[in-house]
């Protein structure tokens, strides 16, 4: 069972992403912000789904910090956020994000994206 780390300061978003992915057969781990996520990433994680606006360390900072570590260069990361500004999307893309999903998301599209990126 593939593990997905969901990073969001909102418990409702973590729950909703978690339910959608667990119904699709994934094991879901949770982190409440970038700092928490950095501490939880390990080799068993197949993919990260990360909010942008979070306290302590936002999603883009976390992505850039993660990519600075050679071990996580290829780990798929998708940003899941209310933000939709092209500049932010471009920054995430340059930092190595594999996708950008705007909240509120459609569960089946999120699952399809995860299936594609973890195939």
């Amino acid at each position, binding site marked *: 069972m593939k593990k997905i780390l969901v990073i969001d*300061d*909102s*418990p*409702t*978003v973590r*729950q*909703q992403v978690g*339910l*959608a992915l667990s*119904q699709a057969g994934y094991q879901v781990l949770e982190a409440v912000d970038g700092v928490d996520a950095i501490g939880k990433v390990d080799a068993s994680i197949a993919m990260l789904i990360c909010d*942008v*606006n*979070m*306290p302590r360390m*936002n999603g*883009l900072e976390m992505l850039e910090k993660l990519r600075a570590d050679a071990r996580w260069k290829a780990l798929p990361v*998708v940003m899941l956020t*209310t*933000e*939709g*500004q092209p500049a*932010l*999307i471009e920054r995430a*893309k340059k930092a190595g*994000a*594999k*996708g*950008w*999903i*705007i*909240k*509120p*998301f*459609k*569960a*089946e*599209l*999120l*699952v*399809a*994206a995860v299936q*594609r*990126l973890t195939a």
Partner: protein
Amino acid sequence: MAATAQTTLDRLRKLRERIIARVRQVNKTTEEDVLSAGRHVQRVVEVAHHHIARLREVLAGPVGNEDSDLGRAIRSQSEHVRQHTASVGKAVAEHAAQVAAVAEQVRSITTAAREIERLNAAARVLSINARIEASRSSGSAVFGTIANEMQQLSKAIASANKTVCDLANAMEKSVPQLVRQNHTLAHVVEGYAVEARDRIDVVERRVAELRVAVSATLAESDNALAEIVKESHAALSKLQFQDVCAQGLLQIDGWVAEATRETAVDLGVEAEIAPVAHASVTNDDVELDRREAGEVMLF
């Protein structure tokens, strides 16, 4: 003037505190309810999964396919009945052959008895001739003895032959009864075989129908589960309003903080402004009604 400015900033600070407190209270309430609704949605999906798994376990094992328990049991029982019926039919046919052989043997015995009777008649003639010869030779002891022995022998043969003939007659009467009984038995066995085949056909047909019905029911259950999961996804999508609204409400604090900062500048005083409640990488307003919401971009 400075005191008035400070009072104004204090009022704004207190206003921020009240706004943040109220927004957090509202967000906490909606968050708890949405989390609860999410758990209910999950429970519905889990119950459906469990129910369908149980249905599959109960139905698929006994009648799900040709190799299922009931299918195997019925095939085994049908084969047993077929083999048993064939064995009984074979035994009845063998019995009929034996009865025919006995009838033939009885006929041979009757023929042999007639031949014995013919030979005995010859022995009686010989006995009479010996007695005549004994008279002619003035009571020859030799011819007399022969005549007596021949007569005794003839009587013994006649007695034995009568027993054989009686037995043959009795058997001739019994053979037709045996043939009739064999025919009756063959008829009963054939009737049973036909009825057993018909009943086996009915059972096998019913099992096949049941298998089709079970297969259709399980397929319908899978479709129902897929529908439930799909609806749960729709419900989860709808529940996401909470996070967007929570962020939107917290952003009010940012606006008041900005107003406080601008007021301080206008009043020409230094103001220590607490960080905004909503951490954001941009200053853009949270859009509560996004047209592009749900959009997925994969790079």
